[in-house]
């Protein structure tokens, strides 16, 4: 009785979870970028053909096992006529294999060639992979137009965006399945990846090369938006941080600047210029903190600051001893940095 119930639960679980697995904002099934769409077509083609091949092999296997059941005697010497006929069938099957593989190779080659590549005049973003977050630097034609941010890439819809990938410490890999295949960030080398989103939306990505203790929590978000929204975002990002608007926030700024926070984090427009951790100038405007770990709210900021080693054990943010008041005000301050 119990086994039947368990089986029932399992059977119900499988299809529902398969369906659940197919959607989502970090899925190769849900392709919304130019590269991801053409790769998905190739994947569908290969999966279909391979399924047919497998079904054929299994059909032959079943037939072979079935027809041998009647025979009882061991065949003493194989009949040369039958052997020759079998040989012809095997040769035909091998030929078919070669043809299928050749088709796959050629299709794969042309899919690779067709993947869009951004040029030098396209929007260029320098991505620095480090343990365990993503540093971003938007490069502009002039130094004033450069700015730093972290863990959230905004891109304009329908345009090629060039990502320059640099590994700062160990090897990481940038993978946003909804938009494109992955590419490694390797110390001492510079790789490039082109993103082109065909539809606006938020696409989650994650580090996919094992990079140490917190490899599991090294996510990033790509937000594709219309050109005007994007330009507006760019303008606001170039701005320095807003000045504190009330007393609590001002107190929070004071805490931030006088405690260890400022040694590692930069907030443009203040004396905090640390570069070891993410740039926090507009941290309140990002959707997530700690590389996709928590949604940005005052509460999550406070939780993160008060005990980063429990939420993300082994990451490089230390646990700074703050009083309750300090914690309240500093989280209010960070949340205000839109």
């Amino acid at each position: 009785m119990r086994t039947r119930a368990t089986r029932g639960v399992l059977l119900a679980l499988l299809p529902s979870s398969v369906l659940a697995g197919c959607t989502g904002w970090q899925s190769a099934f849900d392709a919304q970028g130019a590269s991801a769409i053409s790769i998905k077509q190739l994947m569908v083609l290969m999966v279909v053909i391979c399924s047919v091949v497998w079904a054929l092999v299994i059909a032959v296997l079943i037939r072979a096992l079935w027809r041998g059941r009647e025979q009882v005697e061991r065949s003493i010497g194989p009949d040369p006529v039958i052997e020759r006929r079998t040989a012809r069938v095997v040769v035909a099957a091998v030929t078919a294999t070669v043809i299928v593989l050749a088709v796959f190779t050629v299709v794969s080659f042309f899919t690779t060639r067709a993947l869009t590549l951004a040029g030098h005049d396209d929007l260029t973003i320098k991505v620095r992979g480090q343990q365990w977050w993503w540093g971003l630097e938007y490069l502009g034609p002039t130094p004033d137009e450069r700015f730093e941010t972290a863990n959230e890439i905004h891109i304009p819809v329908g345009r090629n965006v060039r990502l320059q990938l640099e590994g700062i410490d160990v090897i990481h890999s940038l993978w946003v399945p909804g938009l494109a295949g992955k590419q490694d960030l390797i110390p001492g080398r510079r790789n490039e990846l082109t993103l082109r989103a065909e539809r606006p939306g938020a696409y989650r990505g994650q580090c996919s090369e094992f990079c140490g203790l917190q490899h599991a929590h090294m996510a990033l978000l790509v937000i594709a938006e219309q050109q005007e929204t994007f330009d507006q975002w760019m303008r606001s990002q170039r701005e320095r941080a807003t000045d504190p608007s009330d007393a609590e926030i001002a107190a929070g700024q004071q805490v931030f600047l006088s405690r260890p926070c400022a040694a590692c984090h930069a907030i443009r427009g203040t004396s905090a210029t640390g570069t070891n951790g993410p740039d926090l100038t507009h941290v309140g405007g990002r959707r997530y903190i700690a590389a996709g770990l928590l949604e940005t709210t005052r509460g999550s900021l406070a939780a993160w600051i008060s005990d980063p080693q429990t939420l993300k054990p082994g990451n490089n943010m230390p646990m700074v001893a703050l009083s309750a008041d300090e914690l309240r005000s500093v989280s209010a301050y960070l949340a205000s940095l839109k």
Partner: protein
Amino acid sequence: MRILLVSLGVAAATAGCQREERQLRVDPPVAAALDSITLMPNGISGAPPEIYFALDRPYETNAYNLSQGKRLYSWFGCKGCHADGQGGAGPAFLDGWWNYGPEIVSIFASIRDGRPHGMPAFRDKMTTEQIWQLAGYVQTIGAYSIKTAAPGRNDEKQTRPAENRGPAAKRFDEGPTPIHLDQGPVP
């Protein structure tokens, strides 16, 4: 024979556990207790808090803490004055000479509280745990004998042998007669 083997195994086990264990989070009360060192009045030498020994001197013997200290050494700009241990605006570590003694507690105090002639205090820039990690690492730079838990070379231009090669020992041999066995030769 069997007793010998077992005791060897136990020794190896305890040594291994301490050296390789990764204590990723220090409880706030422990961190607070670690902060209360007692220093001699002249600022040279002193005693770490008792909890430091209760934890079995984690910042001198644990490989993970030492490598964290190495990261902090470059993160907090130590290289600006001390270079890779050769010194510059600040004193060298590689020569085996410690202005305030070679004990980790002196190094901890130097980092936390600063020292005259330009060493800034890092009390408000680093947490207690980080200062301990950094102090442990700095101690390995000027170590007279090789520590097996010491970090290896960095992935960057090399200016000296790695910490686990015990470079200070070499300098120590070259120096004049030591006047104080604990403190190495007069520079």
